[in-house]
């Protein structure tokens, strides 16, 4: 008996019991659909996260002021006032691994253009900010070094702010008011999208940090909220951290027993965390999928045992007209594999649809890999062979005389 005929006979037996076959295959369908959807969604999500992280800027490193210690008590992070733009410039000068550096002073407030208003954050930075964040100007230009020196009231808008304040109108050279202070718009940034933690990176206004410090924060001091820098490469990260730390400790005149008055963070921690979370999720869902496949397989074994006992007389007859035990074994094995294989194919279809829906809802790319589909097919066929073998073996072992007598 050839393989093709065996498969055809198996398919016919399944079609004869449509409802039963479908219900039996349901476990496999769900299991495979889960595997496909999970892999697709997981890959889509991790690609999206990686994109979002790199949208923060390449090889990004951030320095925050540390906590202040007064009389044995620690204040919260950022309470130190010691981190200055000069620190940043010194690091840029002395540490060759640092490619670009920008201080960051944060302010926030209501922005007004004519009858439109919009509450947003204002980032006070320097001209290297573009390079640090790898973020270009879409129209107009970025502010200049002389704007920075003179603390000029100029600003560059993020896309979200530009849309909300100007609503289609060209913002260039218009004057907006931030916290009632007039600022001239010199440029609009390109669209950056949302950050890994969901924040809209385009909902911001960028201005010279000197201006933000003096005009918006009304502060005579030149300490900053944060220093951002990009490194020549990610490999330089540990060495760069060490060197930056040395430079800052020296500049802040900290002796060996004193704690750092700053914290250096980089995106690898965020990346690692995201990778960890996503691999945990993948593992969890893989376990669920495996359980579902096992349950589906047991369902197939159960129904195949029923089929063998229902069709004992058919088996006896086939043996009588010349079927070998191997033929009977292959027939029932083929039925089990056809059942799980069909379940697998339906499951792949279902999984792809689910992945598409999830991707659409979350604005993720759909990542359905051929290898995942191949794996799913192999798995479903494997489940059929594994769980179908025992019933098929029982069928092949039947005694033809007794089987023929069975009513």
């Amino acid at each position, binding site marked *: *008996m*050839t393989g093709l005929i065996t498969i055809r006979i198996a398919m016919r037996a399944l079609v004869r019991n449509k409802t039963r076959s479908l219900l039996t295959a349901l476990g496999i369908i769900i299991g495979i659909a889960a595997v496909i959807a999970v892999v697709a969604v997981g890959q889509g999500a991790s690609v999206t996260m990686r994109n979002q992280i790199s949208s923060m800027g390449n090889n990004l490193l951030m320095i925050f002021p540390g906590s202040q210690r007064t009389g044995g008590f620690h204040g919260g992070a950022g309470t130190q006032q010691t981190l200055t733009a000069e620190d940043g410039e010194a690091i840029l000068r002395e540490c060759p691994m640092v490619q670009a550096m920008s201080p960051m002073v944060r302010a926030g407030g209501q922005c007004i253009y004519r009858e439109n208003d919009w509450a947003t954050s204002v980032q006070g930075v320097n001209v290297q900010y573009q390079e640090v964040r790898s973020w270009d100007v879409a129209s107009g230009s970025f502010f200049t070094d002389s704007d920075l020196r003179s603390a000029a009231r100029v600003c560059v808008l993020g896309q979200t702010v530009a849309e909300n304040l100007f609503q289609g109108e060209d913002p260039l050279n218009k004057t907006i008011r931030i916290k009632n202070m007039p600022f001239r718009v010199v440029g609009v940034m390109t669209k950056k999208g949302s950050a890994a933690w969901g924040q809209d990176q385009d909902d911001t206004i960028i201005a010279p940090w000197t201006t933000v410090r003096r005009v918006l924060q009304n502060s005579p001091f030149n300490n900053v909220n944060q220093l951002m820098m990009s490194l020549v490469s990610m490999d330089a990260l540990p060495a760069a951290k060490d060197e930056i730390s040395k430079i800052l400790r020296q500049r802040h005149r900290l002796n060996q027993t004193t704690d750092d008055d700053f914290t250096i963070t980089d995106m690898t921690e965020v990346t690692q965390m995201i990778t960890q979370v996503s691999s945990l999720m993948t593992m969890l869902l893989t376990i669920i999928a495996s359980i579902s496949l096992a349950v589906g397989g047991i369902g197939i074994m159960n129904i195949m045992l029923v089929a063998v006992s229902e069709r004992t007389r058919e088996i006896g007859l086939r043996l009588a*007209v*010349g*079927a070998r*035990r191997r*033929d009977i074994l292959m027939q029932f094995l083929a039925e089990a594999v056809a059942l799980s294989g069909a379940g697998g194919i339906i499951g792949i279809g279902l999984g792809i649809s689910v992945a598409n829906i999830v991707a659409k809802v979350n604005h993720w790319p759909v990542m359905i890999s051929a290898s995942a589909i191949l794996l799913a097919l192999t798995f479903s066929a494997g489940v059929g062979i594994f769980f179908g073998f025992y019933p098929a073996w029982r069928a092949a072992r039947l005694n*033809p005389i007794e089987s*023929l007598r069975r009513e």
Partner: protein
Amino acid sequence: MLISLKEISKVYHMEEVDVPALRSVTATIDTGEFVAIMGHSGSGKSTLLNLLGCLDRPDSGTYLLDDKEVSRLSSDDLARIRNQKIGFVFQNFNLLARTSALENVELPLYYGPKISAAERQERARSLLTRVGLENRLGHHPGQLSGGQQQRVAIARALVNQPPLILADEPTGNLDSRSADDIMALFQELNREGITIVMVTHEPDIARYAKRVIQMKDGQIV
């Protein structure tokens, strides 16, 4: 000589009690014979038919089928002999349910030498025509009368052109008119040279055979 049995014995073991089913049976059946095996239940006639049909092996003795010793063959070899040399006809027809008459007749061809689907169908169709069912090719067993079902079964038994047909109470489930038709068909096949061995307990049916073997307590009397 088609069948030669020499001192065939078969004992069934049932819960520590040995039940002898055949005791040293010796018999020969020539090509072209039409033999009826008769006897009460428990006389060993079914056991004998199963051994003749290579569905079972004797405990001792030799069974030459077509001059070939078959009592010690492997189960795969026995399957091939059943497929090629023997056609079975059963009391309860044993047709596959929800399967057309044509496909039922084709069934033994799947387990024989490879032939094309077209040839398979052609052979099944010509045999169904031969037994007078040319208008019932696509009918399922449930749509056929008992007599028609048994004709399908006979067509199935003939599809590999075996020299021997073994029938186990072939008319047991039929009314007397259908039974007569089936027996007439058997006689016709026998005239064409096919050897038929039939188990029955009805003297009316046994009368169609050329020779009657009476069995009692596992022996031929």
